[in-house]
Each structure stands twice: as structure tokens, then as C-alpha cells.
């Protein structure tokens, strides 16, 4: 097991109260595996990613849980060994490449920085290696691009450059937080192909986080669905697509518009809205929007229970055929 997260709880301590963005999340990622984490905006996906490297900004922090990565627990780790995990153990790519790249440094330098930091290369060797890494990311004319500033690159190029920065540390796990959201559809496909290609090359695990269910389903071996800071369903992608168990997962799948098929039909959506994390409903947090909710659902949040071959679901109603 490369990464084992157990009962992770992260909160923001705001003036208005405690906001539990991640509330008891457990999951595993095997070496070389691709795991998808999906959910609506604001369900805590990004905070899960940031928790892994303890990057949550003030006033938030990881409160409890265990993050076992490659045999070490990251949560009690001192800053110095933690820095070696950041970048070299777990690489991260962020939502908006244009914001994540430092505007005042050349692309090549930003990659070379990682190489010098984690592989101990000299300045000169790192500069040359940076060009090589850029080339591996499918960037044409890498020598030229290494000397470019971020604002001189297109969106897709910037995303590739950011992946290059993440890959320069040769991480065992790549956490990709909405890697394609800011890109147009054709570039999205290219970036995903690139991720899958480098995964094969380096036998690296990927944790892909997105609200784009279709995109994640196309990449991931396993899927996890998150709602209000909790994982409500995990399953192999194949099983998940064939038959989602949680009512929320069903709703998400049904909400994907089908191109061409019955194009006059109105789009389906899950009724209601994501609840305010500061004022979560009692019991199962999905019950106000759930078509099957009854009194049982109002009492306490449902625990995850196994519902078949390596899949689990947090719903009281899974026993029944919904």
C-alpha cells in the first residue's frame, strides 16, 4: 500500500464556527494505481489533497487521523523530513496553472529548482535536465520554452509545465487537483493522455480530484464519491458506472448530459443545493436532497459498509433495491 489515509479530519477554525471540510475520510492508493475523487464544488476534495501534504492554509489544519505514505505517518512528521516528501514523494498539480506558476521566473528555472532541491543536481545540470523534463511532457521546442515566462505560454502549455514541475521530483504519487478544469475540451484530452503516459513510464500512482465525473471515470481504476467532507461511496470504476449504489452517486451519474440522445429532454439535476458546511443537516447530510430518505436517515450519519466486491457505501438504504 503506497498511501493509506485513515479517519482524516481537517477543519477551518473561523470566527463563525468550526468548518469541518474533511470529516473522517479513509482511503487507500496502491502503487501505480489511479484513484478518482469526485464530488460537487465545496465538498472538501481539495482539502483532502492539501491535507496529504499538510498544506492547508491558516486558519485551517488537519485535526486528526493518519496519513501513512510509503510506511511513514506524515501527520507527526517534522518540517525537514516533510519537505522531502513534498515534491519527491508526493507531487502535486494544481487547478490553475497560470496562478500556480510564479510569474517572475522562467519556466526552466522553476523546474530546475525542484531538480536541485530533490536530486541534488548542480545549477547547470539542473538547467539541462529541466529542458529534458519539459520535452518529456510533450512540449515542442523545449529549449525555447524553458526560457519563456509563464505569461508567454498557452493554457495547455502552462499545465504541461506545471506537470513537469511536479514530475521533476519523480514522485511516487501524483495528486492532480482539477488538472483540466481551466482547459478546453481538446486540450483536456491531451493532458489526460499525458498523465496516463507518464504514469506508465514511471509506475506512479495518481490521485485525481475533479468534479468532472466522466473525465475521472475515463482515467481511474477506482472511484470515490465525496459529499460534505465525507466519502459516501467507493467502487471500481467499472462497477460504479454499471450500478452506483449511493443515491447521491446515482444523481451525479444521471446528471451527465448525453450528447445526441433525446436531446430535447430536459437535463436531470439533483434537487436542492449542497448544504452549508457550517450548518450541516442532522443525520445523513444528504437526506434533504435524497428521494429515499426517511426517519432513520435523520438520526445519525450512516457509516461506510461493504456492499459487495471491494465496494462500500455510506447509506442506510443500500440493502434495498432503490
Amino acid at each position, binding site marked *: 500500500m503506497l498511501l493509506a489515509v485513515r479517519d482524516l479530519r481537517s477543519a477551518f477554525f473561523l470566527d463563525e464556527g468550526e468548518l469541518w471540510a474533511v470529516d473522517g475520510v479513509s482511503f487507500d492508493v496502491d502503487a501505480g494505481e489511479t484513484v478518482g475523487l469526485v464530488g460537487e464544488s465545496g465538498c472538501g476534495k481539495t482539502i483532502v489533497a492539501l491535507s496529504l501534504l499538510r498544506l492547508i492554509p*491558516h486558519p485551517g489544519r488537519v485535526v486528526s487521523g493518519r496519513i501513512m505514505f510509503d510506511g511513514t505517518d506524515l501527520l507527526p512528521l517534522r518540517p525537514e523530513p516533510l519537505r522531502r516528501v513534498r515534491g519527491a514523494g508526493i507531487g502535486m498539480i494544481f487547478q490553475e496553472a497560470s496562478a500556480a*506558476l510564479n510569474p517572475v521566473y522562467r519556466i526552466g528555472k522553476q523546474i530546475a529548482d525542484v531538480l536541485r532541491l530533490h536530486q541534488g543536481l548542480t545549477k547547470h545540470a539542473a538547467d539541462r535536465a529541466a529542458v529534458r523534463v519539459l520535452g518529456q511532457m510533450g512540449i515542442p521546442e523545449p529549449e525555447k520554452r524553458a526560457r519563456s515566462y509563464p505569461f508567454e505560454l498557452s493554457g495547455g502549455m502552462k499545465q504541461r509545465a506545471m506537470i513537469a*514541475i511536479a514530475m521533476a521530483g519523480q514522485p511516487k504519487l501524483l495528486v492532480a487537483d482539477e488538472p483540466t478544469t481551466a482547459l478546453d475540451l481538446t486540450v483536456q484530452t491531451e493532458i489526460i493522455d499525458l498523465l496516463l503516459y507518464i504514469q506508465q513510464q514511471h509506475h506512479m500512482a495518481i490521485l485525481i480530484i475533479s468534479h468532472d465525473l466522466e473525465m475521472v471515470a475515463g482515467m481511474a481504476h477506482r472511484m470515490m464519491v465525496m459529499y460534505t467532507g465525507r466519502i459516501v461511496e467507493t467502487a471500481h470504476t467499472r462497477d460504479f458506472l454499471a450500478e452506483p449504489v449511493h443515491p447521491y452517486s446515482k444523481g451525479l451519474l444521471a446528471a451527465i448530459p448525453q450528447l445526441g440522445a433525446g436531446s430535447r429532454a430536459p437535463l436531470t439535476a439533483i434537487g436542492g443545493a449542497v448544504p452549508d458546511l457550517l450548518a450541516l443537516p442532522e443525520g445523513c447530510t444528504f437526506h434533504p436532497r435524497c428521494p429515499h430518505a426517511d426517519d432513520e436517515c435523520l438520526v445519525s450519519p450512516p457509516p461506510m459498509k461493504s456492499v459487495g466486491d471491494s465496494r462500500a457505501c455510506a447509506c442506510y438504504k443500500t440493502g434495498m433495491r432503490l
Partner: protein
Amino acid sequence: MPRVDAERDDIRAKAWVPGLGHLVLGRVGVGVQLIMFTTLVLAVIAWRWDRVVGAFSTPFFDRWLASICLLLVVPLIIRFSRWDVNRILREEDQRYRGKSPWKVALRRFGANRLAVWSIYVIASFYVGALLAPILAPYDPAAIPDVMTNRYLAPSSVHLFGTDEFGRDVFSRALYGARVSLSIGLLAMIIAKSIGTLYGAVAAYFGGIVDGVLMRIVDVWIAFPTFYLMLMLVGVFEANIVVLVLILGFTAWPGTARFIRGEILSLKNQAFTESARAIGLPAHQIIVRHLIPSALSPVLVTAALAVAGMIGAEASLSFLGLGIRPPTPSWGNMVAGGQDNLLNAWWMAFFPGALLTLTLISFSLLADGLRDALDPKALMQKYV
């Protein structure tokens, strides 16, 4: 149109004469400036050759420095001329180099005429101050036959006239520039360096560190600075070093507070997060990612700060608490001239005018920097 190798070698050879290579390449502006500058330097060396060489037989450090700088300029100009010609040739080769935000800012600054002229004024004043022992027509401290030489009006013999002891006001103003200008620059550097690091550390670490550090700043700012300076100047004997330290150490808290605000907004930006995500240690994040991004507004305030420091030194000297006569500073020269405003207006007028010109130039420089370094425009794609 690609050049053949022989042509390149020819241009490179011409670049040994500063400016000639640029002229051949069609960079007339730079070329003419280089030629004029070189001629000027050579003219000064030829004109004051005995002093330039004579400095080395005196024990005075400042004379050595002036002579060495003047002589060093010549090889440096040649070196620059050749380097720049090579650069232009290389860029003609289409060898791509990203358009750095600083380069963009520099180009915009160059388009602002007033700002460029203010640079010229400031630079010539600093050069004049540095080369004072070589340029000054008279010894600023020497008192000749007082009765025949005092209160002489400006003329070709005494450019700025003479004062009550018959000393040459122009020479004294040149030497006075050394005090005023160096105090301004050094005190600014001290204040901005301390303030920048202090504010950046406070903002980056936040929490208790920030709280404690910024409360210290609050207390410091609450002190009326000018009276603090008056007190310190009273306690220590005022010389250049003491004044630089006092001015520098009283002025940093404003910068610290300002930088803290800048960094607070920068540290939650995605590129800081990604710098942390690749495992960069805190001090490198502060020095290499946060401070450079916060630096452009600091540069603007730095130009204003130099003006402020020069003004403060002049005020102290005017009050008789700064640099003591007979060492000239613009402040004490104005102070000395105020009693003679009616019969010898030039005594106060010329140092005062130089002071004013310097302060205005620094303000215009700050304006130009602000426009050129506007962070929103800095990242614009096309300029």
C-alpha cells in the same frame, strides 16, 4: 537579413570603440550616448590628469576612490559596448529569450522622458559627488585672503560665488553633495532591507510571530521620529555614519508594515502554495518567491525614501544638529547662507536649488518607477 561571419567579426571589432558598433548596427541612440559618455570621461581625465594621478600620492581614501573609479570606467565602457553588441548580434540570430517582466518594465520606464531625465540628473549628481576631489576647482575648506575674496558674486572664476570666509561655494556644494547623497542612499538601503525582511518574516509565519513583530513596529511608529532623531543626534556626535544609522534605523517600520501587507496577499496565492508543495524551505520561499513579487512597490517607495532621508539630513543640518561645519553639507550650507540672504543670496540659493532639484528628481523617478512597475501591467502579455 542574416549577416555573414566576416561582417559580424567586423562589427565586433568596431565595438572596441564604444558606440561605434551600435552605430553600425543601427542603434543610433545607444551609440551616440556611449560615444558622448566616453568622450566626457576621457575629457575629464585629460583635463585633471595631474589630480587623477596625484591622488595616488596622497593618503586620502576618497581621492584614491575617485581616481580609481574614473580610470576604471574606461575599460568598463569598452567591455559593456562589446557585450551589448554581442547580445544584439545574438538576438538577431533569433536565439529566443523570454521577455522578462523586468525587461518590459525597463522599456516602459525608458518611454517616460521625465523619469529618464531625473535619472540623468541624479546620476550626474552622484558622479559629481564621487569625483568631487577631481572636479572641484578649489579646496572646499581652504580660506584664502578673506577680505578680498569673501561674498564674491557668481562669476566665471567662482561659478556659485564665495561665502563669508571666501570659500568657493561650487566646490563646497560638490563636497556637500557627498554628505547629502550618500546619507540618503545608505540610510534608504538600511531602512528598506531591514523593513523588507522583517515584514516578510512576520507575514509568512503569521500567528504569534506576526503578532509580536508587528506590535514592536507599532510601538516604534508611535514614537515621533523627528524628535527621536533629535535626541539621538544629541547623544551621539553627529557624523555621516551616525546619521546614516539613525536615519536608517528610525525609518524601517513603515516599510515593514507595508511589505507585510503585500506578502500577506501573496502568500495565499497559488504559486506560494505550489512552492511549498515542491518542498521548498521557508527561507527560500520568502527570499525567492515572495520578496521579488513584493519588490516593485518597494522600489517606488525607495526612491521617495532617498528624497525623504536627504531632506531629513538637510533639516537636521539646518538646525545645526547634523553635519557640523566646516564639513559642508547642503543642509548646513543653506543654514550658513540664511544670514546673508540679502547681501549674498548665492550662498543659500545654490545648495538649496541643488537640494530641491535632487528631491524633485527622486520624486519623478518614483513616479516613473510606479508607472513602469505597475504589477497589473507588469504581467500584461503585450506591451
